[in-house]
Structures are given as structure tokens and as C-alpha cells.
């Protein structure tokens, strides 16, 4: 694919705007009272769904690169990760500001009684250092550690799933779909890692020249 520097900038702006549309649509529905009988729940779940979707998209880019050999998907990794963080922040904000009405008393009562809320908060805490260190500057400063730190996103993907499974009353269809997606995306990484390990071992033990 031959796209110039300007071309990539334009594509990035388009992807950025596209990623903002769920936010715009939800806010528009909220303003126009089109979120149904329980608008807080609709906003809360809407933002949560999109946080998980962007997390899945972000996790999919490296495997796409591995499989297709194309490097362009990786250009969008930071943006997708930050959008996951953006929607997760809105998800949390709706919970604190609208659902709990900023009441510390409600927070103290409701959060400890809900393992799924605790798991959601943990997921958000895991995402914070990733968002903070997402800049190129931080990437350079942290060097090798940056990669290790950003592996936390795998943990966040799993805790987000647990959060979803624990909150569902009975019908696990949707969390199972996300679990399948994240399972495949993490599975590919495990396969890649194991292959490398095998290659490395064979190199050491049998002095086979690696390609």
C-alpha cells in the first residue's frame, strides 16, 4: 500500500472522527431523551460496550500485522488504546456522577458489595499507566520497560471480561462473544511467543542457524 505522509495523516483523522461517533450518537440521544426508560443505564452500558470494543480493536492490530505481514495496522494501536481509555473513563464517569450522584455514602455502600464493580475499577486502574505513558516521549524514556508495562493491557482485557461476566444476571451471550474475541487475540500471541521460544531453544541446543 503506497500512502504518503499526508495520506496517513488524513486517514488518521478519519479514523479518529469515526471513533468519536459512538460518543456523539450517545450524547445526542441523551440530550434528546431518546435513551429509553433508563437513560443512565443506557449511557453507562453504551460507554462500557465501546470501551471493550476499542480494547478488542487495539488488541487485534498486532496479530493482524503478524498474520498479514502488513505493518500499517500498528500505526493505529495508540489511538485505539486511547479510545478504549476514553470510553472507559466515560463509563466510570457516568457511574460516579450520574448513577451514584457523586454521593460518597452511596459509593461506600454499593462498591464493596459488588465484586463486578471492584473488578471494573481494577481494570480502569490498569489502563491509567498505559494511557499516561502512551506518548512517544514516554516510550523513548522507558525503553524496554515500556513494552513490559504495556503488556498490562492483556491483564486489563481479562479483568474487563471478568467484570462483564460478573455483572450479567443470567444471559452470558454477549460476554461470551467478547471472551471469544479476546481469547483468540491473546491466543495468537501465546502461539507466537511459544514458537519464538522453540526457535530460540533449538538455536541454543543444536546450534541450528536461525533464518
Amino acid at each position, binding site marked *: 500500500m503506497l500512502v504518503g505522509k499526508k495520506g496517513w495523516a488524513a486517514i488518521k483523522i478519519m479514523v479518529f472522527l469515526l471513533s468519536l461517533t459512538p460518543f456523539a450518537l450517545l450524547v445526542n440521544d441523551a440530550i434528546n431523551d431518546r435513551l429509553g426508560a433508563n437513560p443512565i443505564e443506557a449511557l453507562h452500558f453504551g460507554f462500557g460496550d465501546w470501551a471493550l470494543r476499542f480494547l478488542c480493536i487495539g488488541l487485534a492490530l498486532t496479530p493482524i500485522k503478524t498474520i498479514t505481514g502488513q505493518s500499517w495496522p500498528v500505526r493505529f494501536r495508540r489511538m485505539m488504546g486511547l479510545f478504549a481509555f476514553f470510553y472507559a473513563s466515560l463509563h466510570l464517569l457516568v457511574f460516579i456522577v450520574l448513577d451514584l450522584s457523586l454521593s460518597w455514602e452511596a459509593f461506600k*455502600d454499593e462498591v464493596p458489595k459488588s465484586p*463486578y464493580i471492584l473488578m471494573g475499577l481494577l481494570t480502569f486502574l490498569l489502563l491509567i499507566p498505559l494511557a499516561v505513558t502512551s506518548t512517544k516521549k514516554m516510550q523513548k524514556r522507558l525503553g524496554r520497560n515500556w513494552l513490559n508495562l504495556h503488556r498490562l493491557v492483556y491483564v486489563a482485557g481479562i479483568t474487563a471480561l471478568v467484570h462483564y461476566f460478573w455483572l450479567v444476571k443470567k444471559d452470558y451471550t454477549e460476554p461470551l462473544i467478547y471472551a471469544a474475541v479476546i481469547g483468540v487475540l491473546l491466543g495468537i500471541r501465546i502461539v507466537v511467543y511459544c514458537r519464538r521460544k522453540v526457535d530460540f531453544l533449538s538455536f541454543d541446543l543444536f546450534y541450528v542457524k536461525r533464518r
Partner: protein
Amino acid sequence: MLIKIKTNILNSEITDRAVFESRREFIKAATVLSAGVMLPRPGHAETGKYHDVPVGPYSAKLPVTDREDVASYTNYYEFSTNKQDSTVLARALKTRPWSVEVAGEVEKPGVYNLEDILKNNPVQERIYRFRCVEAWSMVVPWIGFPLGDMLKRFKPTSKAKFVEFTTLHNPEIMIGQRSGVLDWPYVEGLRMDEAMHPLTMMATGMYGDELPNQNGAPLRLIVPWKYGFKSIKAVVKIRFMETMPETAWHKSAPGEYGFYANVNPEVAHPRWSQSRERVLGSSIFTPKRDTEKFNGYGGEVASLYSGMDLKKYF
């Protein structure tokens, strides 16, 4: 229409007939006045089948939830686990003709035509609070009759200690029943004294008109001091039993949903608090309401459970 409920208004105060009538006059006048300036929204149908039924006892003086909200946000897993989808899918259900099988410890078992049941049980309107186990609530003007009046006519025997209710099982139409999300058909139950309590009613309508399918047409239970899942929809069978019936949600998760399921802010669901409830129809900036024990009907029903550990018998 957004209804703000800020304070805990005393429930179960009996609405005076005159007060109620004057309220109607007010609504009529207000409707006429506002007709020119705003689009009519479906509310308390003045032309509905039950628009002129009398107000029964125990009807609370509370601002009712918008009918649209009540009719578009329903847990009806027989159709879908999605509250909006079930509204649409339930349209496929044919609610006439309808009959109810009466069985078990009873002198007059048999299959009763719904029309005959309704002939013997004149309906009335009662405004009740409705509290879901998922921590949301609404206020609904139900149309129906006391369950006890109906049950007495079947002459339960002295062995009848519990009543079991069963929802229609028809996976061709109730497409949610094709999945194993619950063990179909849906079954609920009450202890005999709970069933005979004057607050407990069988509803056939709401907002002055017939029940919409998604709200449990043509016949559903309403037990206002219990979580909504006790108030079983589309009832086709009533069985009097000597032993406690196994109920649908209890069977699916015995640690989370008990047989009694009395509204109780002091007993949390294992996965979430029950201290507060989101009142449907209120603005997004309205804080949740503090949940009341027995949903505010403690004055009437607390004595049914005296001496019982409500943490154990949740």
C-alpha cells in the same frame, strides 16, 4: 415527561375517591390546556377499556411513571433477555382465548375460562410501587382484583399451604424459551397467607387500559412488597400445594434469588447492593431513591414474617 420523586412519600395511604376524581378532572383539564402546545404522549388512557374502574384500597398517592417507560422496559425472558426487544417480540402472543388451569389441593379444580374469571372478579385500579431486583423501580396504576378473592372461589383444602403459578410455555411464539437461559416454563409461588393478603393482586390492565403483552397480558400477578420477578406474567396454571414450590429464579441461582424475595435494603444481592433504586422516568441528574423495607408496605405485611430471619429467608 420526567417525573421527579425526591422524597419518600408515605406509601399505601388509601386514596380518597373524591381526591382521585378531582385528580382526574385536573388531568383532563391539563390535557385540554396543553393539547395545543404539546404533542400528546400516551399516558393514562381515558378511552381505554378500564378507564372508569373504581379505585381500590391500598392505592398509593404517588406520581405514576410514564406509561411509555413501563411498557418499553420489561424483563420478559420468554421473549428476550433484552428489555426493549421483549416489548416488540411479545406482540406475537395471542391473549384470547385464554384459560387458567386450577389444580392441586383444591375442591374445585378445572380449567377456567379467563372471561369467566373476570366476570366473577370485578376490577379496580391500584397505584403500587414496583421494585425490580436489578435496583430500578417504577410506580404503576395497575388494574386488577385481589388474588385472594379469586383463590377462595376454588375452595383450597386445608392441605393447601402454598400456591404455585406457571407462565405459558409456547416456544413457537415465546422465542426466548428456545434458549436455556431459564428452566421453562417460568414458575413462581407464594405462601398461602401471602397469596391471600389483600395487597396481592392479579392484574389484567394498567393505565386504564388492558395490559400490553410485554407487561404480562392477559393475566399477571402483582405482589408489591416483593421483587418484580415474583410477579409472574401470562399465568396459565395455578396449583395449590402442601410443600413449597420450586421457583424459576431460585432454581437458576439459589444463592441469589430466594423464594420470599421480599424487598429489603438491608439484605444485599450477593453481587450488588439493594439499598437504593433508580426510579424510572426521573431525570438523569436525580439521585437514586432509598429503598424501603417491604417496598414501603411493611405496615401491611411485616407481620407475615415476624420471627423469621430475613437474611436467611431472603
